[in-house]
């Protein structure tokens, strides 16, 4: 039986590992390579690494750092940040990264999705949609680390990503980033119902219950989180953690009882 994935998301800023709140106030939480080593030991399902500076600074992905991540990482790795060309995507896959995440560049020019998929295969192309809700409740996709409104709806962009041959879509809630009060389940369900792509959801997880609620809502899904895996306690002390295999089994059996019985 295919399992839901529980995915730590690491943000890289000035070569350090940081955690943001609503995409702002990056707090230094440690060395990113050291974090990878810890998640290796904890046998995390997968890892997402996002360089939150590259697009904003208009620079290339840091290939040297990506190579270090890929060499150290013993679980599947998805890299995002500053990828604008087919050549860059090929080079990143060539360094031993399983998936390349696109955001700003693919939203400006969606054909980038199909052009990269043609070279590295759909399974390695991920589209990340950073979603912000306006005062009037309208949800739109923002780019450049939450600074630029694309004016496009997450639902339309997710469908377009599927049509153009992406292999996965990551729905990231800017409003819930760092809040640790739960995922945007309504948005996740809307995207799940409208597409047949594997999906991961990021932004808001603060407990195993939050992850369980997402799995219950969306079935076999990627549940990604930042703060939940790096902070402990109400004072947000930095301590990297990850659910044990037993906790993961219990989470899955509770959220998807019919599938557990099936297995």
């Amino acid at each position, binding site marked *: 039986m295919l*399992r839901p994935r529980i995915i730590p998301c690491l943000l890289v800023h000035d070569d350090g590992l940081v955690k943001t709140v609503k995409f702002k106030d990056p707090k230094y939480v440690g060395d990113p390579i050291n974090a990878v080593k810890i998640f290796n030991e904890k046998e995390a399902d*997968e890892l997402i690494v996002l360089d939150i500076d590259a697009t904003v600074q208009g620079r290339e992905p840091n290939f040297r750092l990506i190579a270090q991540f890929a060499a150290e990482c013993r679980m599947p790795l998805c890299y995002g940040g500053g990828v604008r060309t087919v050549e860059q995507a090929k080079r990143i896959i060539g360094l031993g990264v399983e998936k390349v995440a696109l955001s700003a560049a693919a939203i400006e020019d969606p054909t980038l999705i199909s052009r990269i998929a043609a070279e590295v295969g759909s399974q390695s192309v991920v589209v990340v949609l950073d979603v912000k809700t306006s005062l009037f409740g309208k949800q739109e996709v923002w780019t450049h680390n939450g600074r630029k409104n694309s004016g496009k709806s997450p639902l339309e962009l997710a469908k377009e990503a599927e049509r153009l041959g992406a292999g996965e879509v990551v729905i990231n809630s800017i409003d819930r980033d760092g809040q640790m009060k739960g995922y945007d389940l309504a948005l996740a369900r809307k995207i799940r119902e409208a597409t047949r792509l594997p999906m991961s959801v990021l932004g808001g997880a603060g407990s195993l219950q939050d992850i369980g609620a997402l799995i219950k809502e969306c079935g076999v899904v990627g549940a990604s989180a930042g703060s939940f895996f790096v902070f402990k306690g109400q004072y947000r002390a930095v301590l990297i953690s990850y659910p044990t295999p037993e906790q993961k089994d219990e989470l899955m059996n509770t959220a998807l009882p019919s599938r557990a019985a099936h297995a």
Partner: protein
Amino acid sequence: MIRIVDYGLGNILAFQNMYKRLNVPVGLAKTADDLSDATRLILPGVGAFDHAMEELDRSGMRARLDELVLGGKMPVLGICVGMQMLAERSDEGKLPGLGWIPGDVKGFKSLNQPDLLLPHMGWNDVRPAAGHRLFNELTTDARFYFLHSFYFECADPAHVAAVSSYGKEFSCAVSAGHIHGVQFHPEKSHHFGAQLLKNFAEL
């Protein structure tokens, strides 16, 4: 030593790192000459089937690999698209495969299950054939990381080394004598994958 066939595709470094941690002698092969000291072969692969076949041809290693595997009976392990390349043909492309194990590569799409998310991505349970040595100590609770939209359909059921379920039960590992392939990624499957790669080194 184990030579990882480096024709430009697949996570070469991950295999190398895994075997170094296991203290198993390992090296890359970029040319036919590099294969001269090989005792076992890893054939990785990602992306489109035809592209992988073209790149293998272009590497200049294909004829030597045929000699070593078919003539010399050297153990080989194909991974992901590297497993699919062992087949005779693939629905994904037009070029013939290596044809080392009789069978075709089919797409999950052809199952016509509109609810099936594609690609098949994530950790799935793997059920090995009884007593298969590639799965030593992996008989209960084994799970591996998958990332693919096509699967190997063996012409001879005796070549199915393990099955997994996605849309249907499909062969996620194949073995014909000394020729093996796995659809999942042992190099990214934590201790399960390390055990399988160790088993291959000890076959």
